């Protein structure tokens, strides 16, 4: 029974980590601008993610160590410190974007601007972490996140041309706007392969006390959970292609994205979109703050668990309290969350090699994994992901410098 319930870890990881403001924004933008043509980027990102998440779970279940633990133990403090600076900076920006996403959802629902929501939203997120247990966050976020299935309903109701959609699963080059196409492809991959998801999942497996017997369960959960997220994100793209393209609308703002389902589901579309964004961004905000706190606690060997009372792991709780507090500041100043989102995705892409390269070593470590080491298929996938992430980094960094 416990193993059946373990599926919620997969769904929460997927709903909060995969489907969040970043992937929805990029998917909707891509659909509006290029129709089905960028579906392949989501497919590729999802495929890489399935493998990486499976590995994170397997690593924790077999070795009883998280990926962060092992990164410090194998590579030593200096390398760990470099990863820490890069990763924590990016996670922080993602957190700002997610809190902003909650604020924007509330803004379109109530008409009150998102800066006003910065403090209440941050407080709620902090309070859930302070009082809640891991199980509550896990189950709550996955149940609420199921509202995103409306994306699939909307996409199907719009009668997409399945042949054309299938064609979009293969990469191609558009006739015009090559630069925008490339930028969106990079952003989609950056939004899909997000490292906080792997750290979160790997820590979650320890919080849920997985052992070797969970290896098959883990494989199933990782595949199903991430595919779930990928399908939802593709559905958002398809719905955007069918809704915005005929009207000539290029989506640049959250207000425009909110119209995603008003054609397909006239009665509830608007509210379903707002609710979907509200819940997924909430899940992602919890997940990202936890990922940051896990990162510090595991890297420095502090006690950590979302289930203990705060004073039992004071430094762990102190980290997320400070981080959430700081994340509210840019929103209070009225910085556009969508801009933060786009920037954080490009930066995620840029720091991806740092986060993914250790996988290649850790997943082949006989001391940690024994006979459960990676086979050649998984190793090839990691190698390809590292290669992709290096290319993404090379593309994303100049883009950032030039202020794209």
């Amino acid at each position, binding site marked *: 029974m416990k193993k059946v319930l373990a599926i919620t870890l997969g769904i929460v990881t997927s709903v909060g980590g995969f489907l969040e403001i970043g992937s929805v924004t990029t998917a909707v933008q891509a659909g509006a601008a290029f129709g089905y043509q960028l579906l392949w980027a989501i497919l590729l990102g999802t495929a890489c993610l399935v493998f990486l998440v499976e590995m994170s779970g397997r690593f924790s279940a077999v070795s009883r160590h998280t990926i962060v633990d092992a990164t410090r133990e*194998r*590579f*030593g403090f200096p390398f760990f410190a470099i990863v820490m600076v890069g990763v924590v900076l990016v996670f922080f920006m993602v957190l700002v974007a997610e809190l902003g996403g909650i604020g924007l959802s509330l803004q379109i629902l109530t008409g009150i601007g998102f800066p006003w929501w910065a403090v209440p939203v941050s407080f709620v997120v902090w309070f859930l972490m302070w009082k809640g247990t891991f199980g509550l966050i896990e189950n709550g976020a996955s149940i609420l996140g199921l509202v995103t299935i409306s994306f699939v309903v909307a996409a199907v109701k719009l009668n997409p041309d399945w042949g054309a959609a299938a064609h979009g699963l293969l990469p191609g080059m558009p006739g015009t706007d090559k630069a925008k196409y490339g930028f969106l492809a990079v952003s989609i991959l950056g939004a899909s392969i997000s490292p906080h998801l792997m750290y979160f999942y790997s820590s979650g497996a320890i919080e849920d006390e997985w052992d070797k017997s969970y290896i098959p369960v883990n494989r199933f959960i990782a595949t199903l959970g991430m595919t779930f997220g990928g399908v939802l994100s593709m559905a958002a793209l398809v719905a955007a292609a069918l809704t915005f393209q005929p009207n000539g609308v290029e989506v640049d703002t959250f207000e425009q994205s909110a119209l995603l389902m008003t054609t397909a589901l006239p009665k509830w579309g608007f509210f379903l979109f707002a609710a979907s964004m509200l819940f997924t961004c909430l899940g992602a905000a919890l997940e990202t703050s936890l990922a940051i706190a896990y990162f510090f606690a595991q890297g420095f060997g502090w006690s950590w668990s979302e289930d203990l009372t705060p004073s039992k792991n004071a430094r762990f709780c102190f980290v997320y309290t400070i981080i959430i507090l700081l994340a509210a500041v840019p929103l209070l100043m009225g910085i556009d969350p969508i801009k933060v989102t786009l920037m954080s995705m490009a930066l995620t892409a840029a720091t991806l090699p740092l986060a993914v390269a250790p996988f290649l*070593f850790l997943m*082949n*470590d*006989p001391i*940690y994994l024994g006979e459960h080491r990676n086979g050649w298929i998984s*190793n090839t996938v990691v190698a390809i992901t590292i290669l992709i992430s290096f290319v993404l980094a090379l593309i994303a960094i100049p883009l950032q410098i030039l202020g794209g």
Partner: protein
Amino acid sequence: MEINVELLLGTKVCDIDGEDVGRIEELRVERDGQSCLVEAYFIGASAVIQRLSAWTLVRPIRGILSTRRLYSAYQVPWQDMDLSDPRHPRLRIAKRDLRHAK
């Protein structure tokens, strides 16, 4: 004299004639009851592979790493290492007399 092991890692080692040998990457120790004695120092690039426990990863592509230099490590018994200046460790023997680690 006390030396911090973590700061010793990565320092360059010269042999008795001042020739460059490589960097200290790993220490082999023996636990003997309550104490922990240093048996040998490992110098060279593949000592890093050993340290990362990455042999399973490297072995299949051994053929590509044909250069002996990249692929070799020296094992220096504690008697042959002079740590009186921890920032500039020296061997008490010549480089050609060193033993390659397996």
